[in-house]
């Protein structure tokens, strides 16, 4: 077995986003999944159809604004996002952004709250409010997901619907190796959470297409403003991600220096290692 085939093994049966449902075309769109060329099209009935280069028809799901597929045979159903069926929410297709880095690094950066004041200055964080308060991180064995809860952070403009600074509460969830779901204080509906996701399509071990998606309670802001707010945030991350060295995510136990801020990242790496989710990882000490 080649190195490439070995690192793909555990992740090959997972679901990955491969396109927007709203932009399916009969002529199809050529893309790639874990190094393999694939084509995403819609059939005569308008259903998504994903095929490999050899003509093999791949498994498909149409959920959360996106087409999902897998090179293998998924053992589990695509992870649930119950908020996706909740009436009153607006669903935002933010659109694809390509990033020259490992798909795992993209998720790890999404989980890192400590970068807010430095990368998303005056939007999601600001100096001197750089303190990350105590929060809880766990791997929930029943659902096999990484969860971080009670994450509180001061933000000058937490979302498009927030006017002025507020302390925002977050929950982070990793339900699949290249996907993360973020739950965030919802200013107009204090008893609900806004949902902001990062769905990452691994093109190769150091190249990915990122498809952010949101399910929000916000009747005020225009759809274009919602898209542009999230694109602005993600583009700020992109320029950081493309400069990280190495491009793949190091999964070496010796390199972990736990601080309060990156507890989620450590739990994510541990969970990846436990499942041999190493496509896009750099294994230093083996």
């Amino acid at each position, binding site marked *: 077995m080649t190195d490439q085939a070995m690192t793909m093994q555990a992740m090959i049966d997972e679901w990955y986003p491969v396109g*927007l449902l*709203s*932009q399916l075309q009969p002529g199809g769109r050529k893309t790639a999944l874990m190094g393999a060329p694939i084509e995403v099209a819609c059939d005569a009935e308008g259903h998504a159809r994903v095929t490999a280069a050899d003509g093999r028809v791949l498994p498909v799901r149409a959920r959360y604004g996106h087409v999902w597929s897998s090179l293998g045979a998924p053992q589990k159903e695509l992870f649930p996002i119950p908020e996706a069926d909740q009436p009153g929410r607006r669903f935002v*297709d*933010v*659109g*694809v*952004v*390509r990033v*020259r880095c490992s798909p795992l690094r993209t998720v790890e950066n999404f989980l890192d709250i400590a970068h807010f004041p430095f990368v998303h*200055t005056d939007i999601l964080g600001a100096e001197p409010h750089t303190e990350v308060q105590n929060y809880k991180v766990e791997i929930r064995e029943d659902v096999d997901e990484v969860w971080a809860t009670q994450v509180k952070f001061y933000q000058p403009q937490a979302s498009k619907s927030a006017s002025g600074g507020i302390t925002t509460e977050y929950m982070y969830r990793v339900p699949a190796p290249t996907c993360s779901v973020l739950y965030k204080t919802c200013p107009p509906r204090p008893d609900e959470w806004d949902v902001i996701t990062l769905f990452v399509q691994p093109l190769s071990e150091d190249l990915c*297409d990122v498809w952010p998606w949101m399910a929000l309670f916000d009747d005020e802001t*225009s*759809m*274009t*403003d919602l*898209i*542009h707010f999230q*694109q*602005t945030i993600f*583009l*700020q991350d*992109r*320029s950081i991600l*493309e400069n990280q060295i190495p491009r793949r995510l190091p999964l070496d136990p010796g390199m972990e220096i736990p601080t309060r801020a990156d507890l989620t990242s450590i739990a994510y790496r541990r969970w990846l290692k436990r499942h041999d989710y190493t496509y896009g990882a750099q294994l230093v000490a083996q």
Partner: protein
Amino acid sequence: MKLYDYILSPSCYKVRLMASLTGVTLDLRPVDFHPGAEHRSAAMLALNPAGCIPILEDGDLLLTESAAMLAYLAAKAAPAWLAGEKPEEAARVQQWLAFSSRLTASLGGARLHEMLLRPGDIAVLQRQGIAALRELEAGLVEQGVRGMRFLASERPTIADIACFPYVALAPDGGVALDPYPAIRLWSRALRSLDGFIEMPGIHRLHELKPEPPIPTVEV
């Protein structure tokens, strides 16, 4: 004054930056360029048959070329940003305004390809981008010899604003700026101007940290 705007578009940013530097308030009308392709909608094509943004509306004036928008903002609010009376200066402003469209085609094309998956021959776009950067670097070095820090003059003009965004965002398209010291100095000079504003990928000057101490070598 109404600007049809996309937050990630360097050409739209030119106009927002010029407006900020000259103290003009714009009424921004966001266009869903990506993923919605709203710039190609019937309503937008009626404004600009070329199907691109920015578009600037002021009374019965409708502009679809960013260089014309820069000239308009400067003429209206801050004529010092236009060329002065010297023929060489006027010529250099026109030279670099026209040159800026090569940056849009090459570095801008590479960025759209690498970031938003737009079609294009990436190797050709990057090669043309590098050629344009080398020309800009040479132009700035020559200006330096003349004792001038900016492209057409000792003060910044609309020509600098026309060229700056696509140059600063070259790394988004996989083109590094490390080989161009004159461009990096020029970029710092522009970013330190009063009224300078950011866009995603173009940061304010907060990397001005003290030099790290030189480690002493024990013999």
